[in-house]
């Protein structure tokens, strides 16, 4: 079973090391985001709370971005190179697909986090690890939610086609805005606050932020974890259904 899951990891690793554009997602973009936020804070001489919100938010966004990309690209590479049917006729399962690709997303996100955190300590005297163990619970929530979101995008691609590929990049922006990535949820218009309340990422971000600011974080972490597990399981069922449906309509063999 692990060989099949590892296959997806192996493919993504090869694709990443082959292309500058692919490896930039892990190295260049997260650092650009970190330094932009860091220098901006130095310029406005932000208070410690603002530092937690802005740099902490940057870390969360990068982590989420890479985890989601890991799972979406696991399918999209095949779609772009018109070879999806080869993996669909292999003995790999949806679980292998999720496990291998999510592992790749998680490893790249952790690597990117480690590099960014070292640089953040050096340049901005800000250490994300000061959040304590809850930070890893937050990362787990973000990973599980990313899997769910990626599988919804992949399901739409498998069912309807290429036009849904762009959701890979569109959704990360929208979800981060709605998850109150750089600000408290109360800042959002009351109309959209119910949407943030159903996003696990909102709780994940709030949990590590609260931990860093010395506030209570357990309830946020627990809510986020429960929601993200439900979403991840539901999205796996959706993806399995999408593949089944696409085999009925004949769309899968054309991808």
């Amino acid at each position, binding site marked *: 079973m692990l060989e099949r899951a590892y*296959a997806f990891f192996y493919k993504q690793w090869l694709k990443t090391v082959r292309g500058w554009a692919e490896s930039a997602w892990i190295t260049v973009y997260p650092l650009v985001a970190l330094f932009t936020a860091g220098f901006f804070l130095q310029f406005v001489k932000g208070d410690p709370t603002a530092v937690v919100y802005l740099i902490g938010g940057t870390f969360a966004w990068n982590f989420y971005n890479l985890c989601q990309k890991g799972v979406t690209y696991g399918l999209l590479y095949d779609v772009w190179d018109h*070879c999806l049917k080869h993996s669909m006729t292999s003995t790999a399962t949806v679980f292998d697909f999720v496990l291998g690709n999510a592992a790749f997303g998680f490893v790249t996100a952790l690597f990117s986090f480690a590099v960014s955190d070292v640089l953040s300590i050096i340049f901005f005297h800000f250490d994300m690890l000061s959040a304590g163990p809850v930070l890893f619970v937050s990362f787990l929530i973000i990973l599980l939610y990313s899997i769910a979101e990626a599988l919804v995008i992949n399901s739409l691609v498998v069912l309807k086609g290429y036009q849904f590929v762009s959701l890979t990049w569109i959704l990360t922006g929208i979800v981060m805005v709605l998850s109150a990535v750089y600000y408290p949820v109360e800042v959002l218009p009351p109309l959209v606050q119910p949407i943030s309340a159903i996003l696990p990422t909102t709780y994940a971000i709030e949990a590590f932020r609260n931990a860093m600011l010395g506030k209570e974080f357990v309830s946020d972490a627990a809510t986020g974890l429960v929601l993200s597990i439900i979403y991840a399981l539901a999205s796996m069922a959706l993806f399995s259904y999408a593949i089944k449906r696409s085999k009925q309509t004949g769309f899968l063999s054309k991808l």
Partner: protein
Amino acid sequence: MRLGSESFSTEDSLKLIMNAIECTGLSKKYGEFTALKDFNVSVEKGSVFGLLGPNGAGKSTTINILATLLTPSSGSAKILGFDVQTQAQEVRAWVGICSGASTFFEDLTSQEILNYYAMLYGLGGQARDKKVSEVIEMFGISEFKDDQFRELSTGMRQKTALAKSLLNGPQVWLLDEPTLGLDVEIAREVREIIRRMASEEDVTVLLTSHYLFEVEELCQEVAVINHGRKIAQGKPSQIKKELGLLDVISFTVNALDAKRLSSLQRLKGVQAVHYLKGKMVLKTMPSPSVVGSVVDELEKRKIRVRDLEVRKPTLEEAFLRLVEDA
């Protein structure tokens, strides 16, 4: 080894199956359009079976159903006794599929592509290395194994695709126009491998091809489908015979002698005689005795001829007749 004994493996039980592929009442509809209708076929284990038809006839639909890429609207299909819908995982374990002009990840090398797909079939460590080396050697791609897929020639790309389709050691090999766009030499190599896999490895091959000489050369049996319906099935020779396609005997003869040959028309088995631009053309029933009696007649009349040729009808002619009639 006895049935029911603990050491009786899946491979052992597969040996007992006579028909590797069984389609019963297989149909596929897309809305109002019927791509395949009530398709029945049994393919004997270890044989090479040809599936013929014009573009859009339903050949790829059939192959995609057998490869578990497409769900039939009704009917059933079994590979080695496993149902393609309810036992898809078992089917995928025993089936290899390759289409013409296959594409893979452009920036990965042939070896990396093969490693990746070997892993997807659960092969790890030494077993994977051994299998990948084996298929690389079989298809003669070792010289190009470290080249990225985008740099490969059409022939090498297709060889990589064929190599990939054998990674899981399939018992059923589904080949959808495997020699499409290949040069003569590589196409011949591919045909040789197909023949070898069936005769030496007992692999069942389902082959579609627009090159009918290839089908005639490789297949023990063929089915012709048109507009999603099977219109003929049998050995290529049997199909030609049933269609009553005529042999053609031709020879060069001078005009004077040609006039003396009107008696040929009366010979048993001769259906038509034409003389055009120095060439006598006879359409005859497919029987060796007809050729004999034509030669006897020429000798009896002491007529010297040149360039005597007997041409048997081809599968292509049979195919065209079938499709036109349908």
